[in-house]
């Protein structure tokens, strides 16, 4: 039995990638193993932990619950796409570094993408809204207190950079 393969063009972080994948290939596996974008991590493969979260047309999605073939028409953003063009850290990444919002770093990419989308939707979250923003992601190392601080700090950084005219 030969598995039928599909040619897909995935637009990831503004770059088009061509791949041949079976219909059952998960988007998470395609990103990691076919495209080599290993920043997206897989923690549970059943959509609960949130480590594999990527932005699909700007909205956070669990890439372990999507097939690669269903992502062909979308613009996908992974953690690699959150870094500024000059190589410096984006505001959410920078906030995590300042607030010690990560330890082993495995769940971190999913938090970074989730928060990036969350702050676009709500650039001035209250403390409670900062907690809500990350309430669907699991972290086993940090206890979350510093991640909440990082969300608050990221909101500050985003607002500073937008008032100074920088890219948010």
């Amino acid at each position, binding site marked *: 039995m030969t598995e039928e393969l599909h040619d897909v063009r995935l637009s990831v972080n503004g770059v088009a990638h061509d791949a041949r994948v079976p219909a059952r290939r998960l988007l998470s596996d395609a990103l990691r193993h076919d495209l080599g974008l290993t920043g997206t991590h897989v*923690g549970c*493969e059943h959509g609960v932990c949130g480590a594999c979260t990527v932005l699909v047309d700007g909205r956070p999605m669990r890439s372990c619950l999507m097939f690669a073939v269903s992502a062909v028409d979308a613009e996908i953003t*992974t953690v690699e796409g959150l870094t500024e063009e000059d190589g410096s850290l984006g505001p959410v990444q920078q906030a995590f570094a300042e607030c010690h919002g*990560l*330890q*082993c770093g495995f769940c971190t990419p999913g938090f970074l993408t989730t928060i990036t989308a969350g702050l676009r939707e709500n650039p001035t979250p209250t403390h409670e809204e900062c907690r809500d923003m990350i309430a669907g992601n*699991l972290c086993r190392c*940090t206890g*979350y207190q510093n991640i909440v601080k990082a969300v608050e700090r990221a909101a500050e950084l985003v607002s500073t950079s937008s008032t100074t005219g920088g890219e948010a």
Partner: protein
Amino acid sequence: MTTKLMGTPVQRVEDQRFLRGQGRYVDDVAVGKDVLHAAVLRSPHAHARIVDIDVDEVLDLEGVHAVWTYDDLTGPMGEPLPLLIPHPALTHGRTQYALARDEVNHVGEAIAFVVADDRYVAEDAVGRIKVSYDFLPPVVGIDNARAATHLVHDDVPGNVGARLEQNVGDAPAAIARAPHRLELDLTIERSACMPMEGRGTVARWDADTNRMQVWTSTQTSTGVRAAVAVKLGLDLGQVDVITPDVGGGFGVKINHPWPEELLVPMAARALGRTVKFIEDRREHFISSAHERGQVHHVTVGFDDDGRLHGLDVEFWHDHGAYTPYGLIVPIITSTQLLGPYKPQSYRVVFESLYTNTVMVTPYRGAGRPQGCYTMERTMDAIAAYLGKDRTEVRAVNFIQPDEFPYDQGLIFQDGRELEYDSGDYPASLEKLKELVGWDDFPAFKQAMAAQGRTVGIGLACYVEGTGVGPYEGAHVHIETSGKVKVATGLTTQGQGHATVFAQLVADELGVRFEDVEVVTGDTRRMPYAVGTFASRAAVMSGSAIHLAAKRAKEKVLKIAADALEADPSDLQIVDGVVSVKGSPGTAIDLGTVSVLSNPLRYAFDEASKAATQFSVGDPGKPPVPEDEEPGLEGKDFYSPERATFASGMHAVIVETDPLTAEIKILKYAVVHDCGHLINPMIVEGQIHGGVAQGVGGALYERMAYDESGQLLNASFMDFLMPYVTEVPESIDIDHLETPSPLNPLGIKGAGEAGVIPSAAVFASAIEDAEGLPIAAMPISPSELFELRQTRKDTP
């Protein structure tokens, strides 16, 4: 002047790659088409004899390269996996085979190993294997294991793997003579480490150099290396084990070798291809390890002040189907149970029991949470019996600051005396009372009651033996660029070792922090190492790195003194430049010193050109004098006499909902003493994470086995790990710094501390809120609701 970095909250260097998605975890190694992927057929039954395995249809599947069952394993691969830590009391130790031989003893035990083009095809192939079983009665839970109506292993009578008793004085006699006496039965259920990244191994056999290269998500690369060499019949020198970035460990990755850590390199050599195994989440639940399940019976005798006269503890430890990690967990419970207290006399006896469930190996805290829970529940019971404040009963039993070193008279996990090196428990308790507002709580409770709200406060104290031996080593190399390359053999799973160890080296050598690069867990760089467990990395490798940097510095000063025609004692190193104190013009860069340390002076770089102006060495002696080596390096090992004992105390205020029995955390306070802090930001991060894991273990997490040995909640949907919504909003932390006299930096371990008192502190607070005795943890809202019903129903 270089500022001292020890004790400062330096931002982590490893974060730069993690935040960019450039970490290299094991599944990120060997990405692409050339790597083959493995999947494992696991037993769906808890206890069965394997009658037949039919793999005929497997190789028909396109993309499948090979399948192995037990019968295909040769030589040492066909023998049981090693029992890592034998103990005379472990009279009936048993370990599994890499692939089950003729019996499976838990759901999830590996039976067959398939290698295919990708994981999808490998799993398809696993689905084609047909196994016929003869079912055997499963033994699940401590009660059934003790009853021993059925046996897990035919040749282990009573399901008892080990029985160990220790005595200090005559506790039963002291209890009989004591003015008061209480008995308690206390249980605690299973949980598990649950790192976000499961286990995983990649191996590549290089036929050109006759070498095996293994990447594995482990807490001990040297251990895996030795195991791979022995099991595959290779010389140790042919095997390199590299620990990539590890997505959390918490204990489960110290056990080794896992079957796949041997099967993957075996397959890589057989097939001449790179092979990868990445465990999925369900596999992690049913084929890695669990911990915590114990039942305790306490008898305690005490006087009118609550002072202990004697403590007698019997407990039963559920170690699952196999005992690869020996008796470490129950030994730690039995010894660390005493915490900061003097029991006057103590008898402890445990039985370590087989069940047809996933095996037990240490999980962060490693038996201490159970011990702390048992001791602290006992303290609370004494206070309740005497009508005394819970802090008073604890205080009268504390070891006092002038009593250190204090010998508890027991043998610890490392086979050495349980002797506490330093601590100040009364000071910790004072800080904790202040931090949580202990003395103001009765008024708060009354005010809340007036609003119809129920609150309770609890506290728990612990002592944690950290930094156990036998040793760790370090190598420090100053390159001709002036950059410093440091290697230590133990591994890293998120603790920020590359940062804290660089802080130590920058301080000792007088170099810029950013010029120091630390590598951990790579046997090519440091082949002698033990591993990362028992809160030992900072103490063991930190001390070794400090000593190695000192040696490198001695060599720097010797060569620089020669070059600058000065006395070594007149030299200083600041920001990577050696100069004569008070004469800053007389100076030499570390990189140039590195050039001078090696008589082979090809002028490849600026430092080499700069070196030509200096002259070192005695022209009458060989270029490399006797007892010296070329190169600017320092290497040393640290091997302490015994563990160093950190301590701490937690307090929590909870609110329980009168209708739903939901348990809400209003305040969480921690006083922590791990001696001198290298990086307070990282220590506090460790405490935060430990507390969150503790909240999970106290209120939510359990392994829900049914009577047939099926794990019913083997997914993140059903095994309730805390999200942000379950953890305390903030944690108030105060540090006490009682330095350890045992190591050059005066440090103690901090990694496990946060999780140790959780079950104890929540039981204490919920009992205080509800006025109901809490004797079984974890406690969920529905269980609390049931307890309330039982009280109502009891006339």
